[in-house]
């Protein structure tokens, strides 16, 4: 039904372990504690240049936090993050903005500017950073909107869009300046099967034709499996498994077996830490 966009047999797709010397993002000794909870505990990670790396894991394990560290939105308590050879922690605001000009970021909640129309949202980065004639801006914006299937919605306001449409507009805005690094935070939420298929193809095409490095946070393993070159599984403050999605799908470790099998029992607790269930309900001996 859906064509397999990512073929592990293809020569440029077999990076099951990112080449350390060609890492676009390099993380060493990352440690983060938020509100007393350890999110990352001394972790290392390399994101290979020109590949699609998916970050997966149970909710609340720090996937979005990791993206915020990479883009300098949130400082780590300890460790070093290098993006394209630049140490993020050492950048001043101007240098950080220079770096971000080469990064496209798709927010979890789309984050469209509510005062602007769809067209103006996508044109916003172009207008802010480039002095282009209006006709060229118009053509670029319409091209990007066409690629996400929303050229006809250019005149609509964000309040008139569905969640899936807003996400596609946000994606068009994220790619409008042809970034070197694309970061997608939950890009598949709210997409219908047709839109999902087109967005998967778009992400893969961006990667194949422009050599964009992509970092993808998602929960939909079937979608991730079609496009990702490498999957990293986060749980308990550590990267517990990584590799090609087809390899991880075999469930050779207890982590991947539980996560990709959707099992409640395993090393990742389904229940948030709590006191004894029976005691809380008042059924424990002596509770009444």
């Amino acid at each position, binding site marked *: 039904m859906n064509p397999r966009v990512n073929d592990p047999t293809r020569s440029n797709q077999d990076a099951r372990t990112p080449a350390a010397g060609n890492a676009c993002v390099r993380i060493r000794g990352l440690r983060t504690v938020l509100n007393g909870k350890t999110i990352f505990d001394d972790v290392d990670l390399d994101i290979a240049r020109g590949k699609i790396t998916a970050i997966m894991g149970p909710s609340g394990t720090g996937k979005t936090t990791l993206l915020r560290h990479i*883009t300098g*939105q949130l400082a780590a308590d300890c460790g070093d993050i290098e993006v394209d050879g630049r140490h993020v922690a050492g950048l001043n*605001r101007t240098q950080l*903005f*220079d770096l*971000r*000009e080469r*990064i496209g*970021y798709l*927010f*979890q*909640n789309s*984050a*469209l*500017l*509510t005062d602007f129309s769809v067209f103006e949202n996508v044109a*916003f*980065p172009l207008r*802010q*950073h480039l002095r282009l004639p209006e006709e060229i801006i118009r053509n670029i914006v319409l091209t990007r909107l066409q690629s996400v299937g929303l050229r006809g919605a250019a005149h609509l306001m964000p309040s008139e869009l569905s969640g899936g449409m807003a996400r596609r507009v946000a994606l068009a*805005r994220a790619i409008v300046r042809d970034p070197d690094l694309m970061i997608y935070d939950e890009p598949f939420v709210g997409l219908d099967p047709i839109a999902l298929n087109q967005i998967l193809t778009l992400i893969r095409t961006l990667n194949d034709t422009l050599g964009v490095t992509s970092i993808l946070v998602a929960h939909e393993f079937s979608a991730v499996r079609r496009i990702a070159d490498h999957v990293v599984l986060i749980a308990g403050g550590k990267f517990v498994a990584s590799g090609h999605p087809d390899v991880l799908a075999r469930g050779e470790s207890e982590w991947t077996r539980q996560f990709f099998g959707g099992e409640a029992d395993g090393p990742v607790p389904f229940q948030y830490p709590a006191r004894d269930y029976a005691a809380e309900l008042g059924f424990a001996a002596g509770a009444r």
Partner: protein
Amino acid sequence: MNAPRRNMMLADALAQVGAVGLFMFSILAAVPKSLRHYRETVRQVWFVGAMSLVIIMTCGLFVGMVLSLQLYYVLTNFGGTAALGTVVALSMFRELGPVVTALLFAGRAGTSMTAEIGLMRATDQLSAMEMMAVDPMSYVVAPRFLAGILAMPLLVCIFNALGLLGAHLVGVSWLGLDNGTFWGNMTSTVEVWSDLLNGVWKSAAFGAVIALIATFQGYTTPPTSEGVAYATTRTVVSSAIVVLALDFVMTAFLM
């Protein structure tokens, strides 16, 4: 209240003042860059200025009318009704105009600034701008700050004009004071530089303070609906207190 709790409250208050001070320096640093977004500043002047005209004009008219009515009966006791125009004009230009307009401005424009920026924070619009390498301080905050400084003096002038019209309606048209006496005494006594412009300087300062408080509260609000609601309330309360305190200080220096 025990001593440790009192000390903690004092430390919190001082920290808040320090944070507002740092925020003000960030705005001032962002102002040169924000001039690139002059259209946004013009849009904000329209939004906080022109859109506030109805409330400012209505209140100005009624404040002038009630002031005229009260003063007329007071001045009648001393046989000084001829000074009605002068007293109303001085009261309006020097104090009531800037202060009442500032309080109305805080309620009408300050709250909307806080709520708008707070919602932008809650919906990640500010983060999205940062990720697009657009500084929210220069694109969102500084234009609103400049709009506050530009719009307030204009609103005060309109408030004063409508106040005088209201005073004239009550004093001359209703209570029968001579029209020439009303305007003649006023124009011969009221000074443009010392009376009218003092109020204009004050209003520009009030506009800056209200815009600073409103943008700070919006920018630093917790990204929740409750957080935005509290921030909006704090904008009105803090603005009212600071405007009245600043009015006393500025009056003491400008007298």
